[in-house]
């Protein structure tokens, strides 16, 4: 991922990333999380080649069949194979989680760096905007944004990205504030390095570690938020096999065909669990305070 070379080099030639990886490897639970994430990402990439059926192959004569050899996870109320839909849904959840977080990170980091480094009125304005965004319960804000933009998967993604911006912004800002005081930045300033260079070559790379940790955890939250919006009918539209939407569509069959609701629910849960475990592991591995 991000290659950092500007950090003061240690004697044993072991960079902080390598060191982190070593620590991460030792953490069994984090490895399980990483494995789950890898598996889901694999499904997201190659889903269409794995899924036995298409997204919307309705067969109304085969509705609500329990799990069997033919349909591993049963069929839904349109006679569609739930197994296939869950596999194909992985792509949607991962995409929403990944891209929304990327957008949040890019925008949040930019604002955070600017606010933290330049300070002054810029900092005041940006920080107050973050405060305003954070004052709303995040899912409510997302619902409001989607209601304005109109319900669709793309708009749900944008809404989730927007509500996560302040989290990254504040994180980066506080990190930048502390790095700014470091001696190597002072040194850089002393030798007359330009602000731009200091910002993007020195401060930014050094403040990325917490962002990566927070990013992994944010993907988990984003997936849940996307599912929540889908459940409320504000995210993916039928017949997209979005997991939250599948849950919502199946909820009237909770008692007579529980597999229609349990498996999409499990899919969401396992994926989120994977990202959380991996995120926790990354935090432990990359946090300098955790070093012996």
């Amino acid at each position, binding site marked *: 991922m991000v290659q950092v070379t500007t950090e003061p080099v240690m004697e044993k030639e072991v960079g902080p990333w390598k060191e982190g990886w070593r620590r991460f490897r030792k953490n069994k639970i984090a490895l399980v999380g990483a494995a789950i994430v890898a598996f889901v990402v694999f499904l997201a990439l190659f889903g269409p080649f794995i899924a036995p059926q298409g997204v919307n192959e309705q067969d109304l004569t085969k509705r609500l069949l329990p799990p069997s050899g033919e349909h591993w996870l049963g069929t839904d109320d349109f006679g569609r194979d739930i197994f296939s839909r869950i596999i194909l849904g992985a792509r949607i959840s991962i995409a929403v989680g990944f891209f929304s977080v990327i957008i949040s990170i890019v925008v949040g980091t930019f604002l955070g760096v600017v606010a933290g480094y330049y300070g002054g009125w810029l900092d005041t304005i940006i920080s107050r905007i973050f405060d305003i965004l954070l004052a709303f319960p995040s899912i409510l804000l997302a619902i409001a944004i989607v209601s304005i933009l109109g319900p669709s998967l793309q708009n749900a993604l944008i809404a989730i990205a927007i509500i996560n911006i302040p989290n990254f912004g504040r994180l980066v800002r506080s990190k930048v504030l502390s790095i700014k005081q470091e001696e190597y930045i002072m040194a850089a300033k002393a030798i007359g390095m330009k602000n731009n260079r200091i910002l993007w070559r020195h401060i930014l790379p050094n403040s990325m570690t917490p962002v990566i940790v927070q990013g992994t955890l944010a993907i988990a939250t984003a997936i849940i938020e996307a599912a929540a919006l889908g459940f409320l009918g504000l995210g993916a539209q039928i017949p997209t096999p979005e997991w939250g939407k599948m849950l919502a*569509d199946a909820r009237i069959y909770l008692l007579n065909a529980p597999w229609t609701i349990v498996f999409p629910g*499990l899919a969401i849960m396992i994926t989120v669990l994977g990202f959380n475990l991996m995120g926790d592991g990354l935090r432990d591995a990359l946090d300098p305070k955790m070093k012996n």
Partner: protein
Amino acid sequence: MKKQSWYMLLLLVVLSVFLVACNSSDEGTDSNEGTEDTDTTTDEGSEGTTDEGATGGVLVYGRGGDTVALDPAIVTDGESFRVTENVYDTLLTFGEQDTTVQPSLAKEWTVSEDGLTYTFMLEEGVTFHDGTTFNADAVVQNFERWAAGSAEQFYYYNSMFMSEGESVIASVEAQDDTTVVFTLTRPQAPFLKNIAMSPFAIASPAAFDQLEDNPVGTGPFKFVEWKRNDSITLEKNTAFWKDGLPKLDRVIFRAIPDNSARLNALTTGEIDIADGINPSDATSIQSNSELQLIERPSMNIGYLGLTNNRAPFDDVKVRQAVNHAIDKQTIIDAFFQGYAEPAVNPMPSTISGYNEEITGYEYDPEKAKALLAEAGYNGEEFELWAMPVPRPYMPDGQKVAEAIQKNLEDVGMKAKIVTYEWATYLEKAKNGEADAFLLGWTGDNGDADNFLYTLLDKDNIGSNNYAYYSSDEAHTLLVQAQSEVDEDKRNELYKQAQVIIHEDAPWVPLAHSTPLIAAKSTVQDYLPHPTGSEALTNVSVK
């Protein structure tokens, strides 16, 4: 933070236990008790009031939505009528489970030879809930109030008794205290049926300006309180003009929008009757000995409207193609669980004037493709509107839309499913903004006019003719039928109109559904009416 992960694992375990529990309970319930309750016997003798003494009791009726207003003359929605039927009486009423005309506040009536004069003899000794006396004068004042109002204010009065700007009712006069005479400008065949409809309930003239939220009628129950979007409470009218009735002490109408939540409330005992049952829950209700499944006699039509002045549905061939493309029977089996009949004409076959010679467009995707090719349909995407709420004529519009979307995709038509909040949905559809839309209608009085003219005549574009279907030929027949008093001739006119409508295919008539209701097994003598609402006068709770 690790703790969080462990909680998640714990949740996983709990969920899987739940899954297993569900499976086993499904297998265990195969007994078939309670099915005898579904026999909707039209037992005329159930009015007998002597057998039980002081049963009384409180009945909580769970329904999908709240009342709009408690003045039946200004509303059009079934949830409003459901309450007003219990507070007010009409001059005439319908049979317990049919639409035959029966006496109510008017105990007898005569019709003149020419069909222009109707004389009603009223019940004596009836008082309104506010203590004022019900008499001929009160009837006259009610009709004068409606006639003086605008079409927006009194929708039903204007739709039933006004035609092309001209009033059907020339005058309403009180001959003496208990005799009212109606004079018409032209004969109206369904006049008595119209008078029996819930909107034309007689309210206390002293209370005219407050009926909306403080109704005063002569009905079996008195209004107590209304908590908006929650409940409406009624109490027994001890001075009710039918001796020994009503049986219940109190009726509470509770609004529980979600179908599953409403059924849950019934199983936990919070409510006694749950309206709007998902057909998929029918079997589990039948196998529960504490519940009974009640079928409301069907008098409705659920349809897919094809807005006739919007592309691509401005071409009759495209509309016919859609009719051929949709597999009604499979949709009914799946989403009505068989509690519906496939529809052929725009009205149910139980209504007189139904044309049985029309066989309908059979499911034939190949023919649909051929018709589309002939019409030169270029595969452009159109919007398919699905209603957001369960309706008695269609328990799950979203699912039906999704199945139709697939049916259409199979013949090369690309539909995008769209939905709006219910009031917006109706408003926009009324304005002709939908390409294709799901909707339906529950009959008000069991007359063909109430389906064909109301839903498909060009006069009603902008109100109930959501499909913007405009046919001069059909219009001529339908208007002629309104004033035709000879039953056979009238039916013949309706049959001809149905042939024209069938050819023009303004809709895809989908289904005549049987709305399902569940009640505790202790609820007795509840007979749901085909019009969708009924007075609970004879109902009791054991």
